[in-house]
């Protein structure tokens, strides 16, 4: 077996892997926004549930969370009598979305809290409404503060996608195992090395995207960049 034999098969498994990743990325983001909102603006019961959710997502090992999703989903499906939509892939998406959302909430909340109290005061004193303040002033600053943490959250998510094979989703990792088994468990080193490269590339792309946004922020302008900044001021 050589690379040219292995690579196409792995690449075929890539779309599903990426799909799981993107669903978790997007659903997790919205879950995180929701959870963070309720953890900042305390509402009885809902806020406690949000706290509970976040501590579940952050303290239970991800493999376990995937098993919970895998075995829990059918129960839920039965409860609401929607049949036949369940599969390991859906369970993987659900499990990772929940994990990523909880993890990300603990990036967003500190970032929100790290925005200087004075920024709130200034916006309030000028008559900004709560939404206006969040969207115009506090949000953009919190995003800037959160970006490095968000980069880490993305990288952990990508790593954890490799765990979905434990619940039978056919991602690149699972596919690689199938291919290796077909070849009587030879070529492990080459295969794992190839997987490592694929995962590194995914992480690299994620990191580059996050860094792009970090650099683009007007707040990135630091003392050393004083001379260059005026050129960028209009972007």
């Amino acid at each position, binding site marked *: 077996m050589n690379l040219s034999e292995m690579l196409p098969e792995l690449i075929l498994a890539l779309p599903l892997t990426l799909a799981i990743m993107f669903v978790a990325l997007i659903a997790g983001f919205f879950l995180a926004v929701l959870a963070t909102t309720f953890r900042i603006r305390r509402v009885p019961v809902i806020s406690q549930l949000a706290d509970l959710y976040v501590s579940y997502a952050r303290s239970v090992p991800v493999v376990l969370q995937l098993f919970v999703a895998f075995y829990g989903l059918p129960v839920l499906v039965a409860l609401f009598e929607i049949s036949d939509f369940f599969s390991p892939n859906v369970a993987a998406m659900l499990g990772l979305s929940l994990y990523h959302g909880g993890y990300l909430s603990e990036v967003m909340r500190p970032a929100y809290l790290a925005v*200087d109290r*004075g*920024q709130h*005061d*200034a*916006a*309030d*004193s*000028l*008559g*900004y409404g709560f939404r*206006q303040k969040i969207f*115009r*002033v506090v949000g*953009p*600053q919190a995003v*800037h503060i959160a970006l490095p943490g968000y980069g880490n959250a993305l990288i952990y998510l990508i790593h954890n996608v490799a765990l979905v094979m434990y619940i039978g989703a056919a991602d690149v990792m699972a596919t690689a195992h199938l291919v290796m088994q077909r070849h009587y468990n030879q070529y492990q080193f080459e295969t794992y090395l190839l997987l490592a490269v694929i995962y590194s590339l995914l992480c690299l792309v994620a990191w580059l995207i996050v860094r792009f946004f970090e650099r683009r*922020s*007007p*707040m990135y*302008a*630091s*003392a050393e960049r*004083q001379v260059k*900044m*005026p050129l960028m*001021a*209009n972007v």
Partner: protein
Amino acid sequence: MLELRDIRLSYGNSQILKGVNLSVSRGDVVSIIGPSGTGKTTLLKCINYLARPSSGTIALDQIRMDYRRADKPTVQAIRLRTAMVFQQFNVFKNMSVIQNVMDPLIVVQRKSKEEARQIAVQELERVGLSDKLDMYPSQLSGGQLQRTGIARALAVRPDVMLFDEPTSSLDPELVGEVLKVINDVAASGMTSLLVTHEMQFAKKISNRIVFMDQGVVAAEGSPDEVFDTPSNPRLAQFLKSEVAFQ
């Protein structure tokens, strides 16, 4: 035009404001002086409800509010007619100098971009920042930041300006440029309340001085009365320590 009556406020168990009365007429420049921690900043913040008194009333021309029954529309009405300059500047860090001044006009006052820009350029020129319009806060000195804050406050065309120790977090060599701007604002007839430790400056620009001590107004009067013939012993002692400090 601005009247505060019996303002009381506590943080936890400690009473910070213990029944403060203050009245300001149109065009007045009133400086509030007093020892650290007596609640000067807190009093200023009560006016625009950044601090929430437990009782007391405010009247700003026709707008009246009892703090025990503060409601959003009235708070908003007060906020639209006052503007605050902060000790820590509190310039929006995610916006350039000109955006800082334009944004409240666009977002709160719903002015067009063109009109907002026009006003912003004008106010920034007034504070001497015409050449810094597109700079970001991280690239500016404290003095420039504070002048941005002042321009942002002036641009909303408030009836009352609230200055909270505008120069006390500045390096000494930057104090002058900011005091000059405040002096111009006061001279223009803008009704102003100024919390400050700059005694000479307060004496020069104010027509009234209020001495706060331990949560109440302990003495007030014209600059000459307060600075040259202090009747209150604590005021005399405070002035002596301030002079010794400077």
